[in-house]
C-alpha cells in the first residue's frame, strides 16, 4: 500500500464521511421523534411530553451542530480531493447536490433557530410547524444525497460525452435503480438508530435510579423507552425485509459487490450461506468456512438452485477488497438480528409487566445504545468498499478520480481532521453524557403555564451549566 495523494485522500474521505454520517443518522430520526413528542404534547396537554421534548431537543441540538460542521467539509471535499471525479460527474451530480441545498439545508437551518430559540416568540402552533419543517428538511436532505450516492452505484439516465457523464433523463438519474431501496433502507436505519439510542439512553437513566424512586423522576425515561421500543419492535422486521429487497438489487446491478459480500469465488447454483469464513484474495478461496448448504442461493434468488455470480467472473483488478466487505456485511446483519431480539424480548416483558424493572433487559438495552450507529456504519462500509475499484460503478475508477494535490498537503489535512474530530467528538460526548446524567425534568416541577415564560435554550442556557449543580447560577465575570 502506497501512501500517495490517492490513498491518503481515500482515507481522509472515509474518515470524514464516517464521522459525519453518525450525526445525520441520529438527527434524521431525532427530528421526527421530536415532532412526535411535540404533537403528543399539543394533543394531550400532558406536560410529560413537553419535558421530554425539552430534554431531547438538547440532545438534538448538539448532534445537529456536529452534523452541520462536518457536513460542510463534505461539500468541499468533492472538489479539494476529488476534482477529476467532480469534472466527470459534475453535470449529473452537481444539480442533485444543489437541490439538497435549495430544498433541505435552508429549510432545516431557518426553522432550526425557531425550533430551538423561538417557542416563546412564535407560539405553540408555529413552533410545532417549525419542528415539522426541520424533520422534513432532514428527510429531503437524505433524499437528494442518497439519490446522488445511488447514481454512483447504479448510474442511469446519462450519456458519455468528451469523457464526461452528461444528463439525458433526470427522472432516471434521480430514481436510479438502487435509489428507492437505499433511501428506504437508510431512512429506516436512521429511525432505528434513534430508537435504540433513545431506548438505550433511557434505560441507562432508569438504571441509575432505584425502582422506588419517585414516579415523577422516572416517568419521562419510561415513556421515552417505551415509545422507542414499540417503534423498534414494529420496524426492525420491516427493515430486515427492505434490506433483503436491497440485496436483490445488488445481485442484479452490482454482481461483483454481491460476490464479495457472500465471499463467493465461483459462480454457482446451490450457494451455501456462509456464516463465517476468512476470505483469501491471493488463493481466491475461503478458509475456516462455516456454511449452511443452499440457503445462500435461496435468500438471494428465492430458489435453492439459484445461480449466484462469483468473484472469479471478473479479473482481479475489477474486484473490491473481499474481507472488509464480507465482514462489514455480517456485522451489520448481526446487529440487525440483535435488534430484533431486543424488540421481541420487550414485547414479552410488557406482557409480564416488568419492562421497566427487569435489570438484565435494561442493561441489554443500554448496551444496544450505539447499535444503530454500528449498523449504519458497517452497512455503508459494505456499500462503499463493495463498489471498489470504482467510484462511479463501471464508469470511473477511484484511482482516476483524485485531485492533482500533493501527498504532503493531504497528509497534513488528514492529520488535522483526525485530531480536531477526536477533540470535538470527545467534548460532544462529554456534554451529552452530562445531559443524560441530569435527564428530563421531573414532571411535578413544571407549572402548567411556565413554558411561555421560560423559553428553552437547549444548548445555551447559562444558568443550566452542565458542570455545576442543577440550578447553580454562574457569576458574571467582573
Amino acid at each position, binding site marked *: 500500500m502506497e501512501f500517495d495523494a490517492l490513498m491518503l485522500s481515500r482515507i481522509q474521505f472515509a474518515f470524514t464521511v464516517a464521522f459525519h454520517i453518525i450525526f445525520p443518522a441520529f438527527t434524521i430520526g431525532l427530528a421526527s421523534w421530536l415532532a412526535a413528542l411535540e404533537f403528543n404534547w399539543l394533543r394531550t396537554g400532558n406536560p410529560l411530553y413537553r419535558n421530554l421534548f425539552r430534554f431531547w431537543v438538547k440532545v438534538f441540538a448538539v448532534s445537529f451542530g456536529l452534523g452541520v460542521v462536518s457536513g460542510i467539509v463534505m461539500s468541499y471535499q468533492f472538489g479539494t480531493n476529488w476534482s477529476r471525479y467532480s469534472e466527470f460527474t459534475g453535470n*449529473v451530480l*452537481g444539480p442533485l447536490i444543489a*437541490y439538497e441545498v*435549495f430544498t433541505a439545508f435552508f429549510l432545516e*437551518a431557518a426553522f432550526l433557530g425557531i425550533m430551538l430559540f423561538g417557542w416563546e416568540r412564535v407560539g405553540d402552533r408555529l413552533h410545532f410547524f417549525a419542528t415539522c419543517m426541520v424533520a422534513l428538511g432532514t428527510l429531503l436532505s437524505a433524499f437528494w444525497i442518497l439519490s446522488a450516492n445511488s447514481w454512483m452505484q447504479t448510474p442511469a439516465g446519462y450519456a458519455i460525452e468528451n469523457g464526461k457523464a452528461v444528463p439525458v433523463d433526470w427522472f432516471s438519474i434521480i430514481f436510479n435503480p438502487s435509489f428507492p431501496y437505499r433511501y428506504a433502507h437508510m431512512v429506516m436505519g436512521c429511525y432505528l438508530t434513534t430508537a435504540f439510542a433513545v431506548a438505550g439512553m433511557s434505560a441507562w437513566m432508569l438504571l441509575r435510579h432505584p425502582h422506588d424512586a419517585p414516579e415523577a423522576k422516572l416517568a419521562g425515561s419510561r415513556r421515552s423507552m417505551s415509545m422507542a421500543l414499540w417503534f423498534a419492535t414494529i420496524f426492525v422486521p420491516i427493515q430486515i425485509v427492505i434490506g433483503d429487497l436491497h440485496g436483490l438489487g445488488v445481485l442484479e446491478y452490482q454482481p461483483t459487490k454481491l460476490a464479495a459480500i457472500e465471499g463467493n469465488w465461483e459462480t454457482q447454483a446451490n450457494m451455501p450461506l456462509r456464516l463465517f469464513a476468512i476470505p483469501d484474495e491471493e488463493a481466491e478461496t475461503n478458509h475456516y468456512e462455516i456454511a449452511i448448504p443452499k440457503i445462500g442461493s435461496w435468500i438471494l434468488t428465492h430458489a435453492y438452485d439459484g445461480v449466484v455470480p462469483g468473484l472469479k467472473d471478473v479479473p482481479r483488478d475489477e474486484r473490491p477488497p473481499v474481507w472488509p466487505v464480507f465482514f462489514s456485511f455480517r456485522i451489520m446483519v448481526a446487529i440487525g438480528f440483535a435488534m430484533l431480539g431486543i424488540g421481541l424480548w420487550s414485547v414479552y416483558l410488557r406482557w409480564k409487566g416488568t419492562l421497566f424493572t427487569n435489570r438484565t433487559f435494561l442493561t441489554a438495552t443500554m448496551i444496544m445504545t450505539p447499535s444503530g450507529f454500528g449498523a449504519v456504519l458497517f452497512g455503508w462500509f459494505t456499500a462503499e468498499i463493495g463498489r471498489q475499484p470504482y467510484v462511479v460503478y463501471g464508469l470511473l475508477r477511484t484511482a482516476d478520480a483524485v485531485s492533482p494535490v500533493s501527498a504532503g*498537503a493531504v497528509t497534513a489535512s488528514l492529520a488535522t481532521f483526525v485530531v480536531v474530530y477526536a477533540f470535538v467528538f470527545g467534548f*460532544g460526548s462529554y456534554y451529552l453524557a452530562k445531559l443524560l446524567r441530569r435527564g428530563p425534568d421531573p414532571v411535578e416541577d413544571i407549572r402548567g403555564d411556565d413554558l411561555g415564560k421560560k423559553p428553552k435554550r437547549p444548548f445555551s442556557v447559562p444558568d443550566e451549566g452542565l*458542570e455545576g449543580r442543577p440550578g447553580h447560577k454562574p457569576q458574571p465575570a467582573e
Partner: protein
Amino acid sequence: MFGFGTEYEGLAFWLPLVWAGLIAVAVAMYVIVDGFDLGVGILFKSAHNENWRDRMMFSVAPIWDGNETWLILGGGGLFAVFHIAYAVLMPALYVPIIMMLIALIFRGVAFEFRFKAERSKFLWDNAFFFGSLVATFSQGVVLGAFVQGFANDGRQFTGGTWDFLTPFSMLTGISLIFGYGLLGATWCVMKTTGELEIWARRMAIRFLVGTILAMALVSAWVPFLERQIEARWFSWPNIAFLAPIPLITAYTAYRLFRDLEEGRHYRPFFLAIGLFLLGYLGLGVSLFPYNVPPNLTVWHTANTVNSQLFALIGFGIAMPMTFAYTAYAYYVFRGKVAEEIQGGGYGYH
C-alpha cells in the same frame, strides 16, 4: 456580452450568465450574513466581560446556521453549474479551504458547547474567537488567490500547493478581518444596548478605518496584478462609468462614520453592507467574465445546457421560498438582545 462568449449561442450563452449572476448573489449573501456573525466572533475576545460575550453570542445564535448555509450554496452551486470551475479551484485552494473548514468546525461547535460548559467555557470562547478569525482570514486569502488567478489546462489545476500564498493574498486575508469585523461591530450596534453598544460603536469606527485602508491598498494593487484589469478600469469610456464606484464608496464610508458618531442604531449596519457590496462590484468589474482567472470564462466552465436548466428550475422554485422563510426567521428574532440574560431566557426585548 461586452464582446465575450461570442462563440456561444442561445441558452448556451445566456444560462451561464444567469447562473454567474445568481452565484454572485449567493456569494454576496454569504459574505454579508456570515460576515457579520464571523465579525461578532472576531470582536469576541476583546469584549469586556462574560455578560457581553453572552449577549453577542445570543444575537447570532438563532441564525448563524442559516447564514453558513450560503457557503454550502456557494460551493455546491459551483459544483452544480460550473463544475469545471469547482474542479480547478478547489485543489488550487486546498490549504486555505481546509483551514477555513477546520476553523468553522471550532466556531460552529462553540455555539453548542459554550453554554454547556462552566469550567471549560474558556475553551469555547477561544474556539469561537480563533475559529472566526482563521475562517475569515482563509476566506480573504481565497479571495486574493482568486484575483491572482490559477494555472490550469482548461480542465484541471496544474499549479502547486503553495501558489496561493503571496503578499497580495495575505493582504486580502487581513483586509477581510477588518471588513467582517466592521460588519460584526455594526451588527452589535444594532442588536445590543448600553455599555456594550457604546463599545461596539468605538470598535466599529476602528474597524472602519482599517477597512478603508485595506480597500485602498487592495484597489491600488489589483489593477496592476494583470494588464487586463488595468486596461478595463483606466481605458475610455470605461473610466467614465467606473469612476463613480470609488466615489460612492468614499461617501458611504463617510456617512457610516457620521452615523456611528451620531448614535444611529440600524443604518450603520446597512451602510457597512453597502460598503461590502461596492467592493464586491469593483471586483466583479475587474474579473468578469472569468470565474477561473485568468483564462476560464463562465461559458467554458459551465455544465451542459440541460444540467444548468434543471438546476435553474430547482433554484427558481425553491429559492423564493428560502428567502421568505429566512426573512421570517430574522423577523422572529428582531430587536435588541436583553442586557440581563436571566432565567435561561433568550431575553430579547
